């Protein structure tokens, strides 16, 4: 068993990055996630593992530093919050287009605009359907605990390198700011230059040896037919992820008449609502997508014919619900419940919404 600590989600993700042997972090401060870079600066990982930490002059610079380091096959991590992530969009589209592996954390806050600094889940569309231009997808993980904040770093890099695709960890101010017990993985060594060469010589730009052609990192192809081919390749990759990399959790679902579908902090709150409802004799289960993209379409669809209705719960005006509807192909009635703009729903409110759903309101 690894080391046990009480940590904020923001600290856990930072510590996990050091331990995952990440090579570099680039970021720009923004509430509610500035603890990520603050923790890293205080920990001086350059002394622990040689990991580089740099405060960029802006989010644009940060995401493009990520692009640069990732282009060389280096493990690179960045984090920001909603307005900063909007500024990342061009860079993210480039990273996806150039097929670079990296992990990006969005500790979501209330929007739109400057909004609030309180928790929110209103960046679901942006993360899952592409806030940037073009047809691309991020692998989107939604941690619902501090432990998952830590765990999803390693998992994220595994996927990022397996598919050469950017990975988004989408949490929010609640998961970022709360402390929980976290079991930390043991330190992994950073990849040596030799290892990087062995693993990524076919694509990474770390200097052309005589044994191979030059490597080029680009998302450009002025020839549309080649660009389309590249897009087909990307889409095939996404189909593979949809086939193989879906993650989800089912809590009390076996005998459920109703389902709550919720992710991240909403799922945590809804767990309590399930307890409250069960105490009242309502047979409800919680279906928690862990990957927001690829969304557990088939897995949720399996409840067709089994549950009477679904309550889609999110801290947003209604984004997750579209995927829930698409998943069940309109064969189960789905209703939305959510607070937003920085407001967090209480377990009791979710229960009430569930009761209203059952009453058919």
């Amino acid at each position: 068993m690894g080391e046990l600590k009480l940590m904020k989600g923001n600290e856990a993700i930072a510590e996990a990055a050091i331990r995952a042997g990440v090579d570099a972090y680039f970021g720009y401060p923004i509430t509610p996630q500035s603890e990520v870079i603050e923790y890293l600066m205080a920990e001086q990982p350059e002394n622990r593992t040689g990991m580089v930490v740099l405060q960029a002059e802006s989010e644009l610079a940060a995401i493009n530093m990520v692009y640069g380091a990732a282009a060389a096959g280096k493990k690179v991590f960045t984090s920001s919050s909603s307005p900063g992530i909007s500024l990342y969009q061009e860079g993210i589209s480039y990273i996806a287009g150039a097929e670079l592996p990296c992990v990006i954390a969005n500790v979501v806050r209330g929007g739109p605009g400057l909004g609030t600094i309180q928790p929110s889940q209103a960046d679901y569309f942006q993360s899952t359907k592409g806030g940037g231009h073009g047809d691309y997808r991020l692998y989107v993980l939604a941690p619902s605990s501090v432990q998952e904040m830590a765990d999803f770093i390693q998992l994220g890099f595994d996927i990022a390198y397996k598919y050469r695709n950017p990975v988004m960890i989408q949490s929010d101010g609640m998961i970022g700011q709360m402390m929980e017990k976290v079991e930390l993985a043991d330190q992994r060594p950073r990849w040596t230059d030799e290892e990087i060469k062995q693993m990524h010589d076919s694509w990474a730009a770390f200097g052309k040896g005589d044994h191979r052609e030059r490597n080029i990192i680009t998302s450009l192809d002025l020839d549309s037919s080649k660009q389309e081919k590249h897009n087909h390749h990307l889409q095939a990759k996404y189909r593979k992820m949809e086939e193989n990399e879906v993650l989800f959790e089912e809590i009390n679902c076996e005998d459920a008449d109703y389902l709550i579908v919720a992710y991240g902090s909403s799922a945590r709150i809804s767990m309590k609502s399930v307890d409250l409802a069960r105490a009242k004799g309502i047979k409800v289960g919680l279906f928690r997508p862990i990957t927001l993209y690829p969304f557990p379409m088939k897995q949720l669809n399996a409840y067709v014919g089994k549950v009477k209705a679904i309550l889609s719960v999110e801290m947003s005006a209604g984004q997750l619900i579209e995927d829930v509807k698409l998943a069940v192909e309109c064969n189960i009635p789905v209703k939305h419940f959510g607070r937003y703009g920085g407001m967090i729903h209480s377990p009791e409110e979710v229960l009430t919404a569930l009761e209203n759903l059952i009453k058919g309101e």
Partner: protein
Amino acid sequence: MTEEIIIAGFGGQGVLSMGKILAYSGIMQDQEVSWMPSYGPEMRGGTANVTVIVSDDRISSPVLNFYDTAIILNQQSMDKFEKTVKPGGLLLFDPNGITHPPQRKDIKIFKIEAARLSAEMGNTKIFNMVVLGAYLKLKPIVKLENVIRGLKKSIPERYHKLIPMNEEALTMGMANSVEIFPA
């Protein structure tokens, strides 16, 4: 066992660190814990609060509307949180600065004069430890030895010399809470 607690007061009263020590103590005895603070610039000189949950089981929601215990350290927090204690629950408060004492009859209400006591001990920094002591006397959810272990984990090494003083404060708190019976 699951204990759901809100601790609320001014920013400078050590509300967050009290919660943190409590949470760490839970970890020391293999429990699940969560610690969820209010955050943001509104804290600048304003109020602060933290929800702490200690449980034998997996913790669901880290934010709550209702609590087993509310520890309340200023009037604003009293106004906001008195009503959130579950029936049969506990409200512990420091009367310093409280202009409208709690009125509920369906909960247990205790006061601890931690501000006065810590001032008398010549160290207002241990104020929050006095409060924590009082709480643990009333709800011994964590053992004192685990609190000390938790303390060691949550403060930097260079301050470990202050632990005996903190222990004293805890004991002082344990000895001095007084039950209140609303008129």
